[in-house]
Each structure stands twice: as structure tokens, then as C-alpha cells.
């Protein structure tokens, strides 16, 4: 019954069915005034219903090969899109390697771990690295940092920004091969100015902000990454109705995915670790439950392995399960300094 799929109100749907219109094709040849008379509604309302019906049928298609199914894209065309995918570096080459170049744009990546492992540090590093200019292989973009816990520390962001600029000068120096100190015209203050900071104090504000981001990013088209630190905090308490929580979270994830695709930006969601009872023992797992673990496209778990911090690709449609060591230094996220570091492939 195609009528059920139309985004119209329940009473309009009811009227359509009782008037005998059960499929979309039956509406195709009607004019608004005829429909208005049949359903005993205003002409404007009838116009709305017909528009919704024709939109569903997808009268216009941009790609001739997709006239079979509306809104579909052939795998060949998608391959072209995937190859031109842009990444945001994490400043750790090993980590970038297992990520296939860095954090993917047009996708939602969830990063979770125990307290103190470096989630906020990675979030801040990404918010700085998205601003690396095109000349240095970056996106020249701006960042939105949504802070739900108050973990964002400006002094640290300044430190990371400063180190990033120094690294770029260093790179420039080698590139130019004239061994002179090459000053870039960027200052750490400029980087801080391009981070849009939002502080969230409840889950209602979190939902409202994510709804509002569509309009905000339309007005600030150079935003290329949205970091949410952390997506968990306000959803771990306040909810007695777990089913409602699942619905709200999946609605939020869907909106974020749409944002990522529509504006070609990366969405990074930081999650907390919790203790789960499985298989007779207690294990660490990321918070927000099983249904949430299905919603994000990519999932990276940060964990301790001996004395090193490691990142593990827990879930990805295109990357192999692998882990790599990284470290948190005064300059930000960098490669691990241990001599026996290696990338472990599963």
C-alpha cells in the first residue's frame, strides 16, 4: 500500500483511502481541484497531498541510469565518490594508516574508551587538524565542538594549535629545501577562532542543537567536522524509559548521518566506557547499549595495552580490524614512541 508511505497526516491518509485512492499511480492523473472535491478538503491541502505523492515517485532524476529506482546511485558512481573521500589526519601516522588516511568525511565515527585514555585529546586534535590548509594536505575547514561535560580546556587547545603550526612550518622548511625558518601566517589564536564551541547542559539541549545544526552549517559552509564530547553523558542518567532513549538516540544518529552526507563533513562522537556483564564475566564495553552500537558507521575503541595507548577499529564498512599504538604528548596526539610499536592486523 504505497499511500501508507506518504508523509501526510493520518486524517488525510484516511480520507484518501476511504475515497478509493490506494496507490500512488491512482493520484497521478488528478488535478488539485478534482482531488479537493473528492476528499472534501481545501484545494491547497489537495495540492500538498499531490506534491507529496509526486515527490515520492521522484519525477526528476539526475542520473539517467537511475530511472529504475528513485534516489538510488549505482555502485560504480559510488566508487568514484569513495575514492575522492577526504580524510582528517589525527597527527599520528600509525593511527591514520589503520583509518585509511584519517577520520572520514561524509561518515559518522564513534570513538570510545575508559577515562583518561585520550578521547577529548583526540577530539581537540581533530578540531585543530581540520583547519590545516589545502597546501599542507588539509581541509582548510572549521570545526564545531559540542561539549556536554565541560572537558574542553582552552589552554590545551591552544597548545595543540601551536604545535600544529610548528609542525607545518617544519614541513614547509623541508619542502622548500632552503633550511630557513619558514613562518606560516597562521597563529594559534586564528585556529581557536575557527572552533565553534557549544556547551550543552541537558539531553534536550543536545537534541535541539543537533536539529539546529542543519541551519547553522548552512550559514557556515566551511565547517568540516562536528565533534560531540561526549554523546553519552546526558543519556546515562535522566532516562527511566529505555525504549524512549533508544528512539531518541537513533533519531539523533540519523540526523547526524544526514548532516555528514549533506555537507560532506566528518562527525566524531566520543563515547564513554562502561562495565557490561557478558558470558559470565564483567567486561568493558562502550556505553549506550546494543542498539546504539549499530547506529554509527565506524567505531574505534581506545584502550590500554601494557604501557601503551592503542586504538582498535571495532567496526567499519571498509577498513580491516586493526589496532595501532598512539601517544598523548604535550604537542597533542602523536605516534607512539616505543621502538617495538607495530600495527596488529586481525
Amino acid at each position, binding site marked *: 500500500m504505497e499511500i501508507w508511505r506518504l*508523509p*501526510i497526516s493520518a486524517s488525510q491518509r484516511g480520507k484518501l483511502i476511504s475515497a478509493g485512492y490506494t496507490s500512488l499511480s491512482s493520484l497521478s492523473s488528478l488535478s488539485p481541484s478534482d482531488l479537493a472535491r473528492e476528499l472534501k478538503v481545501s484545494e491547497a491541502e489537495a495540492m500538498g497531498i499531490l506534491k507529496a505523492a509526486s515527490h515520492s515517485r521522484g519525477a526528476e532524476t539526475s542520473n539517467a541510469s537511475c530511472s529504475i529506482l528513485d534516489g538510488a546511485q549505482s555502485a560504480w558512481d559510488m566508487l568514484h565518490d569513495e575514492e575522492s573521500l577526504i580524510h582528517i589526519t589525527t597527527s599520528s601516522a600509525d593511527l591514520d594508516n589503520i583509518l585509511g588516511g584519517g577520520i572520514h568525511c561524509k561518515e559518522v565515527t564513534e570513538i570510545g574508551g*575508559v577515562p583518561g585514555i585520550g578521547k577529548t585529546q583526540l577530539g581537540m586534535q581533530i578540531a585543530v587538524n581540520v583547519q590545516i590548509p589545502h597546501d599542507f594536505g588539509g581541509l582548510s575547514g572549521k570545526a*564545531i565542538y559540542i561539549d556536554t561535560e565541560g572537558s574542553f580546556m582552552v589552554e590545551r587547545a591552544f597548545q595543540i594549535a601551536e604545535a600544529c603550526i610548528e609542525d607545518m612550518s617544519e614541513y614547509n622548511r623541508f619542502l622548500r629545501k632552503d633550511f630557513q625558518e619558514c613562518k606560516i601566517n597562521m597563529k594559534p589564536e586564528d585556529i581557536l577562532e575557527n572552533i565553534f564551541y557549544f556547551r550543552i547542559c541537558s539531553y*534536550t539541549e543536545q537534541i*535541539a542543537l543537533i536539529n539546529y545544526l542543519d541551519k547553522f552549517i548552512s550559514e557556515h559552509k566551511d565547517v568540516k567536522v562536528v565533534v560531540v564530547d561526549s554523546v553519552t553523558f546526558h543519556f546515562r542518567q535522566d532516562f527511566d524509559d529505555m525504549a524512549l532513549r533508544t528512539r531518541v538516540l537513533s533519531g539523533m544518529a540519523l540526523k547526524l548521518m544526514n548532516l555528514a552526507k549533506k555537507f560532506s563533513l566528518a562527525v566524531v562522537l566520543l563515547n564513554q566506557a562502561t562495565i557490561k556483564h557478558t558470558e559470565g564475566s564483567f*567486561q568493558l564495553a562502550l556505553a549506550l547499549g546494543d542498539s546504539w552500537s549499530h547506529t554509527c558507521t565506524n567505531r574505534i575503541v581506545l584502550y*590500554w595495552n601494557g604501557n601503551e595507548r592503542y586504538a582498535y577499529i571495532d567496526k567499519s564498512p571498509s577498513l580491516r580490524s586493526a589496532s595501532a599504538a598512539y601517544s598523548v604528548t604535550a604537542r597533542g596526539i602523536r605516534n607512539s614512541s616505543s621502538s617495538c610499536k607495530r600495527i596488529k592486523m586481525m
Partner: protein
Amino acid sequence: MANKLISEVPLPKSIANVFAARNISTAKEALSLTEFELMELLDVGLTEVRSALSQISEIVAPTYQTALSLMEERFQNEHFRGHFPTGLKGLDAALCGGIPFGVLTELVGPAGIGKTQLCLKLSLLASLPTNYGGLDGRVIYIDVESKFSSRRLLEIGLRSFPEIFQMKAMAQEMAGRILVLRPTSLSEFTQSLEQIKVSLLQNQVKMLVIDSMAALVSGEHEQGICRQQTLSWHISFIKSLAEFSRIPVVVTNQVRSHNHDDASRYSFQVQRRDGTMEIPIRYDSHLIAALGIHWAHAVTTRLVLEAKSGQRFIKVAKSPISPPLAFPFHITSSGISLLSDDGMELMGPEINAIHCQGHNEISNFGREGLQ
């Protein structure tokens, strides 16, 4: 913001009436439903629901600030650029100035290690005028285990700032700024918190100390996961209190012994059977912080106080700005002082480990020295 009424949002009259008719009066209620649920409930079309939601969201969503303006605001408006110096030079240097405003700082360690001593010193410091490194305001000290000693407080004051505390009137003024609350149950504590939130700003409260958080729950006879849920409202409340008042909040926590229920691995770690798997290192008294992982996520800075081979250390176990450093310290008549301002950097998760070796000998010695 979350409790914004729908009636205050400039929506078209028709849809505002429908919301009211269906008893959806706050933004929170409207935003908790999905678009389709709202369509069914209100009997309106998708476009109208979307436009109503986007208008409500725009009003409820917080405004942004660039990170630069955040930094400038903090540097200009706040004492000491948003960090409260503890007087322990090495620690202050590591923490970029001191204990950060607006977030929770936790002191965790075994009994008798010096957590309360440090809290007393910080409370005293906060009451002092700004030219002495203080916050020139009141301090609220929530003393759950009745460990607050005003005699000890004044002794610390006399030894550290003799020029102020030798004058009785000044000593009275400073000590008078420290307000001690002694809740005997979790519900009393909850009431005190709500009271504090209301009067924080007009009473010029510049610091909040809770000594100790763990003691509040241990009296409530609940285990493990239930204990965490009991505190989750309080964690949220204290964090928001710290946030909007921009004051430093210091909370102490106890330790407990590691038991089999404590998890340290993910499922993918357990499956791998090769040399890279971590073997949990056992110390002679394997202790971990009480209150669980949810609490550990909620604190921004965690300072671990421990005793190793008879020497006490204060370690920066979790901090957004500091590397994992450990500083040796001892307790003196003027409070706590560091034996070295150059911290030792510790590798790996050892920074989080809590030792209690040779501690008992030390604490007895210390007490004699203080008489």
C-alpha cells in the same frame, strides 16, 4: 533552556494550539518524540512538524562561542585565568596554574594519606585575599565523616601565613569564611546541594569541597551498579553547579580493593590469544578508586595520593592538560608540601594505580610530629 515552554516559542497559532491540546507544554516533551510520533499524535503533516521542531530547536539550542572568545573571556574575567593555585609549585605548573574552575577535581587515596589535609589547606587558601593567592570568598566544606578540624585549620594558617593569622581579628575573618556542613544521610546531602545552588552567587562562594563523596554512598547499603545509579543525579547536579558558577570543586574519594567483578578488558581483547595481551600486574595491596567508572568519567582531574615504599606521592592521574606526573610530598605543620617540584613521569596505566606500601608507619610518625 530545556524547560522552555512551547507557548513561549513563536510558532504559528494553529500548531501551537495543537501542541497545547495534546498536552505537550515543554520543549523537552516535544523534542523527546520522533518526527513520525509527533505527526501521529498531532495529526499534522511532516513539513509542519519539521518546521515546528526546527523553530523549537533553534530557541532551545545554546548559542555558540568561538574557542578564542572563550579563552579571552576566561583570561579577562577570572582570577588567575581560571585556575586556582594550590601553592604546591610543581603541581600548579603541571596543571597549568592550578585547580581548574568550573569542573570537578578529585582527590583519591587510602585512609590517612592526606586528602583531608590537602582539603583543609585549599579551603584556607581560598578564603584569603587575592594578593595572598586566594579567591577572597567563602568556602563551603561538606564534611561527611566529621574529619574537619578547625584547630588544624588555624594551625596551618598560622604556619603558612603568620602575618595574617597572628592577628586574632583577621584569623576570625578568614576562618569565618569557611562554612562547614555535616549531612548525616544522602537525602540531607541532596537538600544541602539544592540549597547551595540557589545561594551560591549572592553568598560569594568561591569554592566547594566535598569530603568525601564515597562515604555518602557507603552508608546506603547498596552494591556495585546500584551504587553508581544512586549517585548519577548528584554527579550531574554537582557538575552543572560547578559549570554555571565557575568555581573550583574538590571532591575526595576512597579506595577499595580490586575484586573479580572489576573489568579491565574489552571483548576483542579477551579473544586475542597472543603476546600483546596485558597481564594485570598485582601490587601488594591492589587498590582501585571507589565509586566506579561512571564517576571516573565525570571528574575532569583526578589526583591520586598514595604511599610507595614509605614515601607519599601525589600523582596527576587524569588531566586534560598535564602529563602523568608523580610528586613526592609530606605532611607538615603548615599543611602539605612537595619534596620536589620536578615530577616523575610515569608510563602507562600505572599512573592510575593506588599503592599503600609502608603507609602505616608514616601516618603514625606524622601524627606525632603534629602534636
